[in-house]
Every structure is written in C-alpha cells, then in structure tokens.
C-alpha cells in the first residue's frame, strides 16, 4: 500500500477506535446508572482510544517512510558483486541512479551490465517487500495499541486528564519544532562545512582573494585546483548591500518621519498600505525588474555619459534591492518614532521649536538606537536576499568597489553551485554549504545585535 493511502487508513482506524471507545465507555456506564458515574465524558474515552491508536501508527509510518529508501539503497549496494562495489560517494550515487532508472523502466535492462540489471530487479523486489512490511506493521501496531487503549477503559479512569496531557505534549512538540529547525540548519550546514575545511584550508577560504570554484574532472587537468577565497564574494555582498542601504535608509526614514509627524490621517491610511505593497512583491519580480529594466537603463545612461558600465552592474541590483527594503526601514522606524513619548514632542514645541527642529533635535536622537536596530535588521535582509542578485548581479567574482562593475555575492554563488545535479563530496558543492554557514552566522549576529538594541531602547520609557 502507498504511504499516503496508509496514512488515510490510519486516520480511519483512529476514527473506528474513537467510536469503539465511546460506545464502550457508555456501555460500562449503563449498569452504574448513566454517564454521570464516569470520571470523564464519553467523548474523552473515545478520543483517548483514538490517540492510543493513531500515535504509534503514525510514528512507525513516519520512521519507515523516512528511512526506507536509504536502507534499501544500502541493501542493494551491499549485494552487488565485489568488482562493482563503488569506492567513492560520487560513483555510488551514479550507480544508484543507474539502478533506479532501470528499475523504473526509464533505461532498458539490456543497456546495462547484467549485475546492474539484477540489482534493479532486487531494488524493485525490495521496494515491494518494504511496502508490504510497512503496511502490515503500521496496521498491526495501530490496531494493537488501539485495542490496548480500548481494553483499559474503566469508569474510574480519568480519560480527560490523559487526553489533555497528550495534547499538551503535542502542542509542546510543535513549539519545539522551532528548536529542531534551528538545530537542523546548524547541523546540516556545519557538517558539510567541516568536510569542506577538510579539503580547503581555513586560510585560503577566509583570506583568499580569488574565487573560481572548479573541481577537477581528471587529476592532471589545468587549473584543477580551483580557488576558494571568499573575500571577493564578501566585498561584493557588502557593496550591493551598501548601495541598497543608501537607497532605502534615507527614503524609508524620511517617509516614516513624514507619515508619523506631518501627514494627516487620510494620507497616512492610503500611503502606508501602498508602501507595504512594496514589501509584498515577490523578490523574483524585483529581480526581473532589475535585470531587464534597471540594468539596461543604467548601462545605457552610463554609455551616454561616456562611462563604461557592465550590463550586470552592482548598482542595478543594489538600487532595486533598496526599493524592496524601503517599507522594511520605514515601518520599523515608524514604530520607533511613535514609541517616543508625546511629552517630549509637546515640550519641544512649547519652547517654540518648529516641527522639523523637534524632529531633528529631540525625537530623532531619542529614537536613534531603535532606528539603528531597524537598519541592522534591514542590512541582514539585504545580505541574505537572493533572487534579485541571482538575476541581476553577475557570476564573475571581481574584487572591486566600483558600483558600475559586475560583482557577485554569497547567495548568488550558493545558488549557482547547488542548482542542477551535483555530487556531494566535491569541494564545489561543499563550498556552497560553507558559504551558507557564513551567511547564517552573519545574519544571526546582525539580528541578535539589532534585537538587543531595539529591546534595550524600548525599556527606556516604560
């Protein structure tokens, strides 16, 4: 049976368990004189039986579905004749995809060596066996556990407390998923990063000024080594983020000030949602806009001024990214400006200061830490932004500060290194994970600092 039908079946079993539990609690209560002699309502007895039935079943199903492919692959590889057993991970994945192609019928068995065709047959057989076992195991576990739960229904049993305790644990598990996700990110990225540093030295990665990730197809290939110096990527990322900030900070901040201090309610209620629309537009749309409209415009403009500009200039990607970040900056600064107590404003105005003087000399300094926090958050956004730079910035890793030249960023390289098929033991793919680790650390650091600043500042007026 397919995993999805089996899932459905488990739910049906749970429903049956619910009905049986419900009726058993009622029939137990009847001789005692009605359900008021039960410790809990019949609903809870039913729900308890259903939970007893479904939780073990789902656990078994989930584990089986998650690991069956890996186990089957190991069994298939293990049963190959000695001369075919792959020695590296790369050849192993190649061989496996060959076997599974034969098994799925995409590749006729006559095209491959007989042992591979046999392995494909074995793969098919193992898959079928695995499904049979899984179906049998899940159904028997569910039925058995449900039966046990059903058997233990007593009028004195506090089913409600048990059901609520299980639910509470379930809720807890959902909340703890956030921790699991973070751990997942850290481990998956860290593991590959350590493997990367096993191949490429620490010093080269952090201090190298040359980035051209290549892996040798043959041992004697020219330039087989490849260069993995992240400095050009890092400066490229910073350059584009800087341009984005130059666009986003003044525009975002000034519009926040205008909206919170000058604009009347009607203007505010129309302009604010419009600004927020900028934040709702998917990044791929910005990327499209940057690559096909802004970049040609900038290079044409530069050409007409007699300057040479690349058609994938950092300026195009950066300025469009700035537009994307405007609402981010403006709504964060809006919050901070509004949090400054009205008394400060009134005091300054009462002394005869104009609104702009109040803004510049009183409110802005008071709101500055919060605004800085918001800007740091925006910077972390810009560093991690992917689609705009993938579409509008280039691939060439130039170490330059000229915004009209092509630069590349950390995220662009991650995407280019990891799209398409790849083997998982080349320095090239591992480099993507190392870059991901750096990106994760950088954004994490920025966020932590920014949140600290914002929080510390907020407490001042409470």
């Amino acid at each position: 049976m397919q995993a999805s039908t089996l899932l459905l079946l488990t739910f049906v079993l749970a429903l049956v368990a619910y009905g049986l539990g419900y009726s058993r609690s009622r029939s137990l209560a009847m001789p005692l004189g009605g359900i008021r002699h039960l410790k809990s309502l019949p609903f809870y007895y039913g729900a308890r039986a259903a939970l007893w039935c479904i939780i073990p079943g789902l656990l078994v199903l989930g584990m089986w579905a998650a690991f069956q492919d890996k186990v089957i692959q190991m069994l298939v590889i293990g049963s190959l004749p000695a001369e075919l057993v792959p020695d590296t991970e790369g050849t192993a994945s190649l061989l496996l995809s060959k076997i599974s192609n034969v098994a799925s019928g995409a590749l006729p068995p006559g095209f491959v060596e007989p042992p591979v065709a046999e392995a494909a047959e074995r793969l098919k057989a193992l898959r079928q066996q695995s499904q049979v076992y899984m179906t049998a195991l899940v159904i028997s576990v569910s039925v058995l556990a449900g039966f046990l739960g059903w058997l233990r229904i007593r009028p004195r049993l506090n089913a409600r407390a048990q059901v609520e305790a299980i639910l509470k644990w379930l809720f807890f598990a959902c909340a703890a998923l956030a921790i699991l996700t973070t751990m997942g990110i850290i481990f998956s990225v860290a593991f590959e990063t350590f493997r990367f540093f096993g191949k490429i030295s620490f010093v080269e990665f952090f201090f190298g000024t040359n980035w051209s990730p290549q892996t040798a197809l043959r041992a004697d290939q020219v330039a087989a080594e490849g260069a993995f110096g992240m400095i050009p990527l890092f400066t490229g990322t910073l350059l584009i983020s800087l341009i984005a900030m130059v666009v986003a900070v003044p525009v975002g901040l000034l519009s926040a000030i205008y909206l919170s201090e000058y604009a009347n309610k009607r203007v505010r209620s129309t302009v604010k949602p419009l600004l927020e629309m900028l934040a709702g537009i998917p990044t791929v749309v910005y990327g499209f806009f940057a690559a096909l409209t802004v970049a040609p415009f900038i290079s044409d403009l530069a050409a007409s001024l007699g300057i040479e500009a690349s058609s994938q200039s950092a300026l195009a990607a950066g300025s469009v990214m700035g537009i994307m970040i405007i609402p981010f900056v403006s709504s964060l600064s809006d919050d901070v400006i509004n949090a400054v107590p009205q008394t400060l404003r009134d005091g300054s105005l009462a002394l005869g200061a104009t609104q702009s003087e109040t803004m510049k000399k009183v409110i802005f300094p008071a709101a500055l830490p919060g605004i800085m926090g918001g800007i740091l958050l925006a910077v972390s956004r810009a560093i991690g932004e992917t689609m705009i730079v993938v579409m509008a910035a280039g691939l060439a890793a130039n170490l330059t500060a000229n915004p009209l030249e092509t630069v590349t960023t950390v995220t662009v390289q991650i995407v280019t290194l990891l799209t398409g098929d790849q083997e998982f033991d080349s320095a090239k793919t591992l480099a993507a994970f190392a870059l991901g680790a750096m990106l994760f650390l950088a954004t994490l650091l920025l966020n932590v600092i920014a949140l600290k600043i914002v929080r510390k500042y907020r407490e001042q007026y409470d």
Partner: protein
Amino acid sequence: MTDQRSQAEIVRQSLKRRYRKERRFRAYGILAIAIALSALVILFADIIGKGYSGFVKTTVTLDVQLDGEMMYIDDASDERQLKMADFVEPLIQALMKEIPGATEEDRDAVRDLINPYASVTLRDALQANPDWLGTTQTMTFLTHTDVDVYVKHGDDDAYSIKLTEEQQAWVDRLLEQGAIDTSFNDVFFSNGDSRDPSKAGVLGAIVGSLLTMFVTLVLSFPIGVAAAIYLEEFAPQNKFTDFIEVNINNLAAVPSIIFGLLGLAVFINLFGMPRSVPVVGGLVLTLMTLPTIIISSRAAIKSVPPSIREAAEGIGASKMQVVLHHVLPLAMPGMLTGSIIGMAQALGETAPLLLIGMVAFIVDVPDGFFDSATVLPVQVFLWAGSPELAFIERASAAIMVLLTFLISMNALAIWMRKRLERRW
C-alpha cells in the same frame, strides 16, 4: 530691556530661515514618499507594459484540404498511418493559397510562418474525426513565434524581427485579409512549459504552486497554531521556553535560502526524498513560514480578553477546555489572517525552491504531490533568464498572474480582518 528686545529681534530675524528649513524638511519627506511610490508605479507599469501582449496569441485561419494522396494516408482511423502521414504539406498548401504571389520556391519561407506544433494539432483533429479525410476544413492554428513577435511588436526596436521583408509583406497582407488574427491567449493558461514561446503556458506552474501551497498550509497552519497555543497558554516561565522563543524569532529573520540548504541536506540527502517534487517544496516552505504563523497566532490569542477565560474557568472548564472551546474559536480569524499572509509570502518565494531542484524544465502538468513540478515564481525566473524576448513577454505575463494571486490573497486577509476580527 534692550537685551530682551535684541533677543526677540534675533528670533524674529531667524524665523524666515527656520520656516524655510521647515518647509524644506517637509519637502524631503514628500519627496521620499514620492520616490517610493513612483518606484511602485514604474515597477507595475514596466511589468504590465512588457507583459500585456503575453495574453494575446496570434493565430492563422486556413482552409485546409485534407487530401489523402498528398498526406500519404488512406485511412485516418489507422494509428500507424496517422503516425507516418505528412501533416505539414496540407498546411503549406493552404497557406500558399492565401498568399497570391507565393511560388513553389517560397515553400520554406511559407512554412516558417506556421507554428511547428500546428501539424500536431491537425493530426489530433483528424484522429478525432477520421471522416474529415478528403474534405476541406476551416481550422485555426497558432502562427510561428516569429510571426507572433512581428504582429505584436513589429514597430518596437527592442524586438528583433526575424522575418524576411517578403515574409513581413505576406503577414501584413494576411492580417488585412483577416486570415492572421490575434485573440485571447488561452494557450498560456492551458499548457505547461515549452521550448517554443507561443506554446508555453503557466498551467503547470500554477498547479505546482497549488500543490506546494496545499502541503505548506496543511502542515504549517496546525503546527503553527499548536505552537502558539503552547507558548501563550501552557508554557512555564523558564529558560527552555525562552530558548524556544529566541529560536522562533531568529528563524523569522533567517534568509530564505538557508532553508533551501536545510531542505537539500535533510530532506533530500538524509531522507532520500526525490528532487523537485511539491512535497519537499512544501516541507521547506512550511519551516520557513512557521515563525510568521506562530507570531501572528500568538498575537491573536493575546487579544482574547481574560474575562472570557475567567468566565469559562469559573464554571469549571479545564485549562485545555478553556483554550479549545473558547479562546481558539475567538482567536481563529486573527490566526487565519496571519496564515494567509504567511501563505502569500510562501507563494512568492523562489530561492529555497531553486536549491531543492524545482528549476527543472518540466513540460507536463504535475498530477500529484510526488510528481516533478515547478512553481510560478520559479517559472518566472526560468523565462526571465531566456534570451528570447518572446519568453520575457511570457515571464511578465506570469508575474501578472502571480501578483493577481498575491493581491487577492492579501485582499482576502484585509477583508477578513475587517469583517471577522472582533475588537474588545
């Protein structure tokens, strides 16, 4: 006395300057807003300007003479003969008849006006109606992409017209005669991706997006709500709860591409799940949207007044009953609103899906959660990278479709917030 007056004098003299500064400051504010809003307008105008023509297709209507001898076929119900028969020749002959000056030497030039897939259309039609053999039928076919580009953008310098002068003259004539015509591009909404721009559509991407969003919604909404309930109602005040909260807040700010790395390392490499399928995409997007949903659900739970809780507790409800029977239904509209916004974010997300392989060129419309698929934003990315301007036009049109979805989702969220959310 004199001192005071001179001070007042100084203030008065400076007033003009100060007011001017004030006005300038205000003008800066207005300018900033104008810049932001004009960016929005330019963006929309650019996309609509580039893409509106993507909703138009160019067709040619021909009287096709289905002559068995010319097509090397004598029985249209025979599969084998249908496979071997020549369906290009009748199209060329029909079009030649429409162009008076065309001679046999122009055959290739004439053929290049018709879409390469038109013969397939003709074959399918004949297969469906075997008795058409030997008759003359009036049928409508797609034109070649080059004709499509010429008809739509003939006077636009940005587009390179690939038709020869002679072909252009023919197309102009046919346009006048009404044989070549433009109409609403239904192909765009009923096809998957294709190498030929005029046959490429977004249906595959839309279905892929819907499947992915379904997985995301089914997983992230219950999990997010459960997590919010735990954190708001049951979590004890301790270090571990703090740790969970710190994690959620940080995950909300982690770049989306990192989730792609996670999906690649965990779901694909560790668990051996297939690449480019909606299930894996949905799982990755679930992890990405969960923080958003948890945060907005918590706000919704917080806004339920304590009096409700106290009243329920007062008549003997357990904590869980209070939450499930009273707090949750009242907080539901707020939670749904937050989830719709989270879903809208997920729908527009591209980067993590690139890493888990949803960038493959897929022609077929996916028919299940484990079928290779692509999603709308990735389709936009793929077409935008194409050197052919006809694909750029499709990419803009696909963006418009995507934005329509997003705007209607956000409008739904706003409507729900106004209609359903209770203020206490």
